[in-house]
């Protein structure tokens, strides 16, 4: 158990480390649980609340098990799924210039990844929420850049900035998903522990959008990463034959 001071005993730390758990040190988190995480949990290997409650004996009914170490809904191998919020979400979007409607830096701290974990999916989700429903139903030109070496005090200026993708999206009403491992620059190398991206959006047609709408879009944008990893040590064969 956790002492009042918030520090863990060595035994508790060792136990948590064995299970790969790193509890928050402070008060209980209030962050809502994303629906995708609930969905993945409910599709897990069991309904844990009821598992084994029928009888504790060799007569327990056997139900078909999903593939081990495979996240069926996402179609990738893995046994750890993390939902990571944009670390720069609280920063207001930068005033865009020219035809740009939105230019927003996104930061994701992935330093918690253990070297023995193999990345199998890094999916960026952009959700414009309710104000997105106010946006005109029209094409949007979207670009995503990988940025390195941010200049101090200059949120949108970088030593190195490289466009990862340009895409036309028909609407902002639905969440947008991007497989970051499929983008050559990131997928072909060691994934950065601190991922800095710059999102740029402009209307696909020559429309004169009010600046207020662009500001609303920037404020309503929720960016997150769904990170799936496979820790082979957690995925042992179910039976061994000699």
């Amino acid at each position, binding site marked *: *158990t*956790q002492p009042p001071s918030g520090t863990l005993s060595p035994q508790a730390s060792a136990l948590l480390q064995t*299970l*790969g*758990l*790193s*509890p*928050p*040190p402070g*008060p*209980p*988190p209030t*962050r809502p*649980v*994303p629906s995708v*995480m*609930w969905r*993945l*949990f409910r599709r*897990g*290997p*069991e309904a*844990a*609340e*009821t*598992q*084994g*409650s029928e009888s*504790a*004996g*060799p007569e*327990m009914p056997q139900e078909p*098990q999903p593939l*081990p*170490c495979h996240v069926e809904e996402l179609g990738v191998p893995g*046994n*750890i*799924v*993390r*939902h*990571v*919020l944009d670390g720069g979400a609280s920063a207001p979007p930068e005033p865009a210039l020219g035809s740009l409607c939105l230019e927003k830096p996104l930061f994701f*701290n992935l330093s*918690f990844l253990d070297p023995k974990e193999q990345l199998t999916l890094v999916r960026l989700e952009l959700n414009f929420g309710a104000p997105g429903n106010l946006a005109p139903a029209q094409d949007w030109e979207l670009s995503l850049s990988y940025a390195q070496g941010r200049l101090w005090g200059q949120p949108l200026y970088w030593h190195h900035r490289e466009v990862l993708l340009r895409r036309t999206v028909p609407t902002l009403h639905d969440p947008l998903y991007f497989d970051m491992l499929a983008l050559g620059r990131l997928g072909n190398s060691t994934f950065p522990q601190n991922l800095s991206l710059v999102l740029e959006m402009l209307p696909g047609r020559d429309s004169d959008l009010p600046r207020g709408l662009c500001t609303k879009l920037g404020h309503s944008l929720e960016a997150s990463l769904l990170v799936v990893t496979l820790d082979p040590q*957690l*995925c*042992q064969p*179910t039976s061994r034959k000699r």
Partner: protein
Amino acid sequence: RATYLAPLDSPDPPCKARRLYINFREVGWHNWIIAPRGFMANYCQGHCFFPTATKISSLNHAVMQSLMHSVAPATTPPPCCVPVKLSPISVLFYDNSDNVVLRHYEDMVVDECGCR
């Protein structure tokens, strides 16, 4: 021929799975484990005397050890009653980086016990 069978007055019942509910509130993890609130982990307890060891999932070695224990209890201990079949669970929790994490754990629920 073994003439010494399971002691009729043995204090231990035969090896089998017993109910054990791991309650995350009781261990003080309920503030950051989102789901489940707990799970039926079970555990194994009971004796592996001869012929019990022949009636449940046991290694051949354990059967022979139980037989030897029945004739020479002072020098040969009985086999151990341990989990032989387990199943996984998933746990949804907050980590110390404010991420929501779903982690899959193998071998968390005892489905069957045997002698080893």
